[in-house]
């Protein structure tokens, strides 16, 4: 699975992009975020407050219960501030 990070989440995680092998127990976005937090360090710090975190799977906004699978492109970022 390809993970992408943007804005301050990228800065806190410490990379813009990473390739991860999805653990078999992770089935949805909530599970993915829990697993990423459990890796500690920048991931734990970046994902401690999920109210200011948005997730897109394959370039569509999704909710925490949305399923994820290997091969997905998952982007994690703060609420958008364009325009």
């Amino acid at each position: 699975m390809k993970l992408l990070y943007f804005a301050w989440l990228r800065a806190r995680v410490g990379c813009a992009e990473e390739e991860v092998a999805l653990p078999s127990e992770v089935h949805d976005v909530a599970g993915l975020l829990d697993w990423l937090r459990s890796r500690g360090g920048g991931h734990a710090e970046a994902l401690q407050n999920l109210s200011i975190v948005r997730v897109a799977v394959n370039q569509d906004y999704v909710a925490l219960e949305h399923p994820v699978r290997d091969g997905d492109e998952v982007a994690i970022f703060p609420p958008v501030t364009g325009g």
Partner: protein
Amino acid sequence: MIRVQRDDFDIGIELDRLAAGNHRIGGIASFIGLVRDMGGGDQVSALTLEHYPGMTEKKLAEIELEAHRRWPLDASLIIHRYGRLEPGDRIVLVATASPHREAALAACHFLIDWLKTDAPFWKSEETPQGERWVAARAEDDAATKRWHSSPKDG
């Protein structure tokens, strides 16, 4: 039409091109977003716009399609810039063309409201206190939600 680009754009050329050759069009509405020199009470000397290539184009195309579904538009254009910009620089152009002004004005307003809450762009400001990411505004969410209950819905 949508464009995501680093370079500036010429408003006159873009608006002329939007209506060129289509004499059904009776009016063009436009919104141009500029970089302000203040943010959160601090002087802003520049801002940098980051975006999510791929998803940005996808979301803008979806938003534009939705505007055409809701209003009788003959043409529309969204240009959004990324990269480092300074106060007074243009960030975004939204333009809508229709036989009558009501549809053009409403669709233009709808597009800029949606773009603020749905297009994956993030602003970072350079201030005397250092560089910082701009926080999303609750007012922008409220502005977009307004369109969910629009009588044009459905």
